[in-house]
């Protein structure tokens, strides 16, 4: 049954020591969490697709920023501002390197992946889309891209077409070949689905889009943290991801865009740091990437994201991927042993680091509550893919998602909790 690796290429015990929160013990009794209660069970954190935990090196890089060179960036002549500016600019270089971009001109720091989608939808979509134009999405889009393009399309009169998902959780590539036509201006798709675990063929979709002259926006929120990714290989025009899902801090996300395209785009947020010159009548804009970074940017967060890139590259993204896929495959196998459990998405040996599932007759929120009684942290809901869940015929699903510090024993704890729920509700 299990066709995937059983062993991990990572020294997980050593890695776990870098994440103080993994030593957390939480109350076995869900009904009165927190203070005053015995926190008696070791946390099993399986909600990594929502947010990853943060290693010491990342947190300390930010404390170090605040404690030794905190200053506003750009144009400051004094020492601290110079140090902060260099650190802030180098964070762009580091992220560019991390995803194989040409340089800092292609890296815009935003607040999260969602803002990256909106930036392009506003700055490019509002002016370029119109009646007769088509935006192609997938049925498995996250609301970050689905709602954004849907609403911008509504405002501009453009049409949205959703690529179908097959019974077994793959993108229907026949539909893709048909739908991506001459009227298509933008193809925006999730690289690794945060609900199904599906890994979409990014380069192939990019080819289809480029053949008809459309732009390609890759939602890398789940892929950048979990596998080696090179924007040149995919040949995407835009890529969005978030710091907090890749061992980095909250409050920062990244928009990658090809320089020539970003160059053509008008800015979207206005203010300080993004202007070249201003008078009372009009303004001109700064060079890339600053043109898109209005106001004081997330400086400490950029320092933290730099540290997160270092941290992940030191481990090696291939090994992170192997480890996670081993866990996802194992969880898939164990959960599908239960007749009354439905696991969504592709087979266990062909999926990203997560497993979305439902237990017959038990609402996913109840299942999540019961897992929490075992200190097993999973997410339940529609995972910001409400339309996809409608097509799955499920209002909600439970989702366990894995990262580099998770273990097979933690998967076992999940399975035990699910089994308890089965018996409780039987």
């Amino acid at each position: 049954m299990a066709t995937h690796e059983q062993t991990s290429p990572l020294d997980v015990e050593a890695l776990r020591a870098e994440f103080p929160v993994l030593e957390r013990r939480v109350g076995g009794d869900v009904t009165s969490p927190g203070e005053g209660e015995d926190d008696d069970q070791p946390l099993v954190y399986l909600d990594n697709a929502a947010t990853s935990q943060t290693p010491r090196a990342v947190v300390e890089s930010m404390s170090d920023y605040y404690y030794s060179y905190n200053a506003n960036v750009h144009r400051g002549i004094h020492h601290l501002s110079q140090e902060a500016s260099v650190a802030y600019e180098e964070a762009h270089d580091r992220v560019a390197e991390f995803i194989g971009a040409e340089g800092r001109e292609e890296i815009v720091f935003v607040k999260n992946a969602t803002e990256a989608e909106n930036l392009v939808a506003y700055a490019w979509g509002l002016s370029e889309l119109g009646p007769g134009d088509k935006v192609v999405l997938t049925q498995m889009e996250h609301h970050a891209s689905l709602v954004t393009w849907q609403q911008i399309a509504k405002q501009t009169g453009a049409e949205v077409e959703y690529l179908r998902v097959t019974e077994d959780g793959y993108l229907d590539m026949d539909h893709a070949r048909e739908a991506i036509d001459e009227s298509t201006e933008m193809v925006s798709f999730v690289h690794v689905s945060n609900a199904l675990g599906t890994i979409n063929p990014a380069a192939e979709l990019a080819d289809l889009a480029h053949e008809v002259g459309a732009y390609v926006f890759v939602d890398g929120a789940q892929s950048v943290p979990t596998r080696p990714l090179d924007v040149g290989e995919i040949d995407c025009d835009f890529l969005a991801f978030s710091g907090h899902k890749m061992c980095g801090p909250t409050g920062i996300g990244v928009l990658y865009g090809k320089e020539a395209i970003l160059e053509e785009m008008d800015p979207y947020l206005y203010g300080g740091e993004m202007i070249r010159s201003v008078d009372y009548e009009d303004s001109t804009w700064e060079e890339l990437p600053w043109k898109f970074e209005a106001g004081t940017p997330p400086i400490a967060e950029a320092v933290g994201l730099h540290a997160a890139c270092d941290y992940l590259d030191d481990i090696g993204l291939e090994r992170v991927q192997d480890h996670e896929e081993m866990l996802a495959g194992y969880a898939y196998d164990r959960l599908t042993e239960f007749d009354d459990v439905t696991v969504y998405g592709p087979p266990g040996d062909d999926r990203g680091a997560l497993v979305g599932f439902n237990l017959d007759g038990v609402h996913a929120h109840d299942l999540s509550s019961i897992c929490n009684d075992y200190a097993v942290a999973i997410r339940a809901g529609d995972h910001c893919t409400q339309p996809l869940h409608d097509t799955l015929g499920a209002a909600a699903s439970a989702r366990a998602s894995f990262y580099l510090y998770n273990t097979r024993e933690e998967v076992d704890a999940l399975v035990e909790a699910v089994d308890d729920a089965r018996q409780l509700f039987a």
Partner: protein
Amino acid sequence: MGMGSDMYRQQILDHYRNPRNYGELPDPTFSHAGENPSCGDEIRVDVTLNDDGVIERVSFTGDGCAISQAAASMLTSELVGLTVDELDALDRDDVLDLLGVDVTPMRVKCAVLAEKVAQDGARVHRGEAAVDRTTTE
């Protein structure tokens, strides 16, 4: 069974599995529906009042998590004989008492859905509010 079953004590599971007062009333004085979007819970309550404004019959239909459905079942079992004012005076602690367990903060919205739906329905009926659909988020 594991250690984690407080929120799902037998009584709650029993009401979830065998909901009391489930169904629709033939000629309700008022009906009102609502949802708790966080769990996707839905509840609709039908109420018949007598001439003194006392609740004579109550039923509910719905779909959702165990907490929301059990709370609806338990609450509707308590409403007959109350006046609309008494219904209005209920608060979330009354429902939590009925459930007999501590409910975690994120699940309180499930627990109070039926109560809010019934109260909003009564308010709409009396012309005191214009709530189309109740929501507990």
